[in-house]
C-alpha cells in the first residue's frame, strides 16, 4: 500500500496543476501580509471604532498572529478549489487520459488502488495546508512580529501572545481535517466521472451551495443546516473562544471524519462496480 501511495504521490507531483495551489498560496498570502503591514492599522482602527468610544487602546494589535488569523478566516472557503484541482482529477484524470485499463492490468485490486489514490490525495492536501500554515505564520511573524490577537465575533476576544500559537496550530490541524473532507468529496465525484472538470465544478458547487444555505437564516434552512458537512468546516474558529468548547470541536471533527469515510466508501464501491472502458 505504501508503494502504491508513493507511486500515486509521484504521479500527483508530476503534474503541473498540482503546483497551482502552492503557487497561488505563495503569491496570495504574502500579498495579504504586505497589504496588512502597510494599511492594517487603519483597517483595524476602522473595525474597532465603536470600542474606541469607551476605551483607550494601549499597544499594537497588528502582528503576524492577526495576519495569520485573517488569512485563515478569509481563505479557508477558497482553499477547497485548490484541493479539488488535484483530488478531483485523481480518478477521473486516469479515465480522461485513457490510462485506467493499463493501470488495472497491474496485479493490484481496485480497492487497494482507490485507497492508495485517496491517501495520496490526502497527503497532497496535507502538504498544501502545511505550506499555507508555514507561509502565513512564519512570514507574518517575520514581517509584523508577534503580539496579542484580537478576534471579533459576537464577543470581542483578546488573547495574550503566549496563548495564541497553540490556537493557530490547532486551527490549522482542524482545517486539515476539514480539507480532507473536501478532498474526499471531490475524490468521490472523481470516481463517478470520466473527466476532471466535472468533479472540480461539482465539488465547488456543492460547497458554495451548502455555505449559502448555512448563511441564510431562514427556518427551513435552519433544520437542514446540521446535516450539511460545510456547517462543520469552520469549527476551527472555536479554538478562538474562551473557554474552548472541545466537545463541539470533537463533534464537528467527528462529523467531518465520518463524511470523509463515507465519501471514500462510496468511491470504493463506485470504482469496484464501474465498467472501465478507457
Amino acid at each position, binding site marked *: 500500500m505504501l508503494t502504491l501511495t508513493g507511486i500515486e504521490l509521484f504521479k500527483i507531483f508530476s503534474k503541473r496543476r498540482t503546483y497551482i495551489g502552492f503557487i497561488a498560496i505563495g503569491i496570495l498570502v504574502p500579498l495579504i501580509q504586505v497589504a496588512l503591514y502597510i494599511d492594517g492599522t487603519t483597517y483595524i482602527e476602522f473595525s*474597532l*471604532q465603536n470600542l474606541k468610544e469607551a476605551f*483607550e487602546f494601549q*499597544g499594537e494589535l497588528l502582528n503576524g498572529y492577526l495576519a495569520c488569523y485573517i488569512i485563515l478566516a478569509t481563505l479557508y472557503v477558497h482553499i477547497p478549489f485548490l484541493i479539488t484541482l488535484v483530488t478531483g482529477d485523481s480518478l477521473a484524470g486516469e479515465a480522461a487520459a485513457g490510462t485506467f485499463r493499463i493501470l488495472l492490468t497491474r496485479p493490484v485490486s481496485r480497492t487497494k488502488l482507490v485507497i492508495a489514490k485517496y491517501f495520496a490525495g490526502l497527503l497532497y492536501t496535507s502538504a498544501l495546508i502545511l505550506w499555507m500554515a508555514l507561509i502565513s505564520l512564519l512570514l507574518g511573524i517575520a514581517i509584523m512580529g508577534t503580539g496579542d490577537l484580537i*478576534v*471579533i465575533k*459576537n464577543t470581542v476576544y*483578546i488573547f495574550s501572545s503566549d496563548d495564541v500559537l497553540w490556537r493557530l496550530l490547532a486551527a490549522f490541524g482542524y482545517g486539515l481535517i476539514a480539507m480532507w473532507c473536501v478532498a474526499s468529496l471531490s475524490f468521490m465525484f472523481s470516481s463517478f466521472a470520466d473527466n476532471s472538470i466535472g468533479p472540480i465544478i461539482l465539488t465547488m458547487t456543492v460547497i458554495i451551495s451548502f455555505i449559502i444555505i*448555512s448563511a441564510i437564516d431562514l427556518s427551513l434552512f435552519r433544520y437542514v443546516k446540521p446535516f450539511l458537512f460545510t456547517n462543520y468546516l469552520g469549527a476551527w474558529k472555536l479554538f478562538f473562544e*474562551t473557554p474552548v468548547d472541545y466537545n463541539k470541536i470533537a463533534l464537528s471533527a467527528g462529523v467531518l471524519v465520518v463524511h470523509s469515510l463515507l465519501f471514500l466508501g462510496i468511491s470504493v464501491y463506485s470504482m469496484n462496480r464501474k465498467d472501465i472502458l478507457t
Partner: protein
Amino acid sequence: MRIYFLHFRILTLLLLIASPVLSQKSDPDSLLMRVQNKFRAVTDYEAEVTIKVDVDFIKIPLKKGIIWYLHPDKVKVKTPGFALLPKRGMNFSPNQLFTGNYATIYAREEKVGNIMTSVIKVIPQDEKDEIILSTLWIDPVRNVILRLESTTKSEGTFSMQFIYDAVSGKFDLPREIIFNFDLRKSELPIGLTGDFENTAPKEKGAKNTRGTVTINYLKYIVNEGKGTAAFKTSAK
C-alpha cells in the same frame, strides 16, 4: 441659677471649639482645597499596575504593566501586548477639579464602607464642558476622594471608586481604582476577519451596558523623577 449659668458657659465654649470643625466639614471649597493640597505633594510617580476589564462582550486576560503620572494631569500606561484602558477618568487627578469655573455644593454626609464621607457636588459653569455634574465622596479626615461620579453630555455617566490602604500614608495614593462607565453595545464590525458565515442572531436594538475596569496599583515610587523620565522618553 449658678449651675444653669455654668452649663450655658460650657455649652457656648463647646460650640466655639466645634464651629471651625463643623464649618470645615460642610465647606465644599475648603474640602476640595485640602484634597488638592494633599495631592499636590505628588509631583510624579511610577507604579506597577494590573488591569482587569469586565465587560460582558469583551474577554481580555488580566494585564500587567507600569503607570506613570506627571503633575498636573499626565498619565502614561505601558503594558506588554495590548490593553484596554477606560477612556474617561484614566488621567483623572484632583487638580482637574480646579481647572475652569465651577460651583460647589455641600450635599450631605454619607458612609462609604466604614468611612463617613462628605458628599460634594461640583457643577462646571462653562457650557462647553463635557461634564455636566460631578459628585465627590470625600474622606474629610484623610482628605482623599473615595468615590467620584460624573455625568457627561454625550457619553453617559462614569464613576470611579478609590480604595486606599487602611493606614494613612504621606501621599495616600490609591491601591485600587474601579472605573465604571456606560457602554453602547453597538453591533461589532465583522469585516476584520471576514467572519461572514457567523450567522448568530444579532441582538435587536443594541442596549447600553455597563463596563468595569479595575486597576490595582503596586509598588509606588513617588517624587523620584520616574514620571518625568517616562514622559521625557516618550517625547523623544
